[in-house]
């Protein structure tokens, strides 16, 4: 049985997609689109790329019912910021929650503009239907997609078995358009995300076994971050930078939903990931993220800490909540998937 919570548009048929136009015009089919940001240089960059731009402090001067892409380079989301967009439609890009440098902000804006929101939503609908209908496990394997490794290649390869509960919740956005008074995360377009129910029930939604070979690593911070969390997030950012600099894919091994090792080349990062994501959680996987912004993959720089990288690979695994410790996403960029036979 499939239940859609009230604000979710109904699942469409397999062959029909919503949204005409490309990119942001799929999200906002009519009217002017404003890139609204808390950084003047980012606003200027958006204008250079041919878009209307405005500063966050000037939102009150925008026309009613404006369509806004809210690019938060310096601020985490807050109630005050959200209140500024009453009466408008907002696609929210929380740049600062990941990394708020000028380079990351420009890169993230580029990927927001390049994303095919129609295709991403089509994949979200595919996954929603498939997870409901298929009883077996989801298997992500390097040999199932384009560019499958040769049999003689003895490097680690992705083979990740994802067992899902019979009753489960998932987060995703199913059709591209944002209407007035809606505040929608860009992340919701780019993935179907399943999270652990609680610290007392890590495997109530899913359990993971196998190997994930990851091209990218992200670190994110929630706006409710604690002081201890802030310290761990700084550790995680340094750790992420080291992983990105070592030039090797990050290899995760998991057993029954727990990370047993995290290595890149000859470096073992397991203990540091545990500390950075809150050691109390003992490396239990918090999130199974199925990426659906796959059209973007050829244009991704996996070294960067941008939310737009998160949904560009077939699957990512998340540890930590971003509140008491860092949320770290490890993104697989190889292979495809199949459903195993149930039973």
């Amino acid at each position, binding site marked *: 049985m499939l239940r859609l919570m009230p604000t979710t548009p109904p699942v469409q048929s397999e062959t029909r997609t919503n949204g005409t136009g490309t990119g942001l015009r799929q999200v906002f089919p009519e009217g002017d689109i404003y890139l609204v940001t808390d950084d003047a240089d980012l606003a200027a960059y958006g204008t250079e790329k041919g878009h209307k731009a405005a500063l966050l402090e000037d939102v009150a001067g925008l026309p009613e019912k404006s369509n806004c892409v809210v690019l938060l380079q310096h601020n*985490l989301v807050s109630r005050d910021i959200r209140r500024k967009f009453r009466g408008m439609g907002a696609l929210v890009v929380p740049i600062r929650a990941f990394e708020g440098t000028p380079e990351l902000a420009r890169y993230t804006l580029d990927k927001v503009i390049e994303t095919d929101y129609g295709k991403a939503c089509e994949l979200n609908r595919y996954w929603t239907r498939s997870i409901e209908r298929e009883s077996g496990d989801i298997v992500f394997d390097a040999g199932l997609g384009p560019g499958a490794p040769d049999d003689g290649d003895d490097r680690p390869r992705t083979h990740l078995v994802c067992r899902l509960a019979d009753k489960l919740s998932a987060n995703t956005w199913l059709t591209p358009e944002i209407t007035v008074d809606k505040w929608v995360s860009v992340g919701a377009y780019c993935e179907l995300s399943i999270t652990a129910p609680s610290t007392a029930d890590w495997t109530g939604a899913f359990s993971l076994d196998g190997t994930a070979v990851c091209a990218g690593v992200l670190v994110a911070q929630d706006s409710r971050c604690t002081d201890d969390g802030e310290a761990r997030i700084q550790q995680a950012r340094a750790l992420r930078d080291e992983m990105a600099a070592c030039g090797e894919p990050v290899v995760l091994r998991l057993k029954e939903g727990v990370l047993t090792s995290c290595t890149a080349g000859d470096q073992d990062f397991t203990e540091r990931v545990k500390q950075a994501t809150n050691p109390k959680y003992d490396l239990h996987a918090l999130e199974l993220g199925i990426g659906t912004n796959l059209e973007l993959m050829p244009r991704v720089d996996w070294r960067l800490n941008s939310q737009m990288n998160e949904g560009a690979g077939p699957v990512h695994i998340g540890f930590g909540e971003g509140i008491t410790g860092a949320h770290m996403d490890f993104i697989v960029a190889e292979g495809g998937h199949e459903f195993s036979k149930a039973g």
Partner: protein
Amino acid sequence: MRDLTVHDQSWSLDKDDRAVDYTNPFDASDPVTAASVSYTYAS
């Protein structure tokens, strides 16, 4: 067949600027339950 509930992580505001229509339990005391993996929540 699975019993699947889909949340869309979108928000609307009521007249008092409180978030309504959201479906993630972001006020939960357990931070794992409250985790907002899209990073666009604020209480």
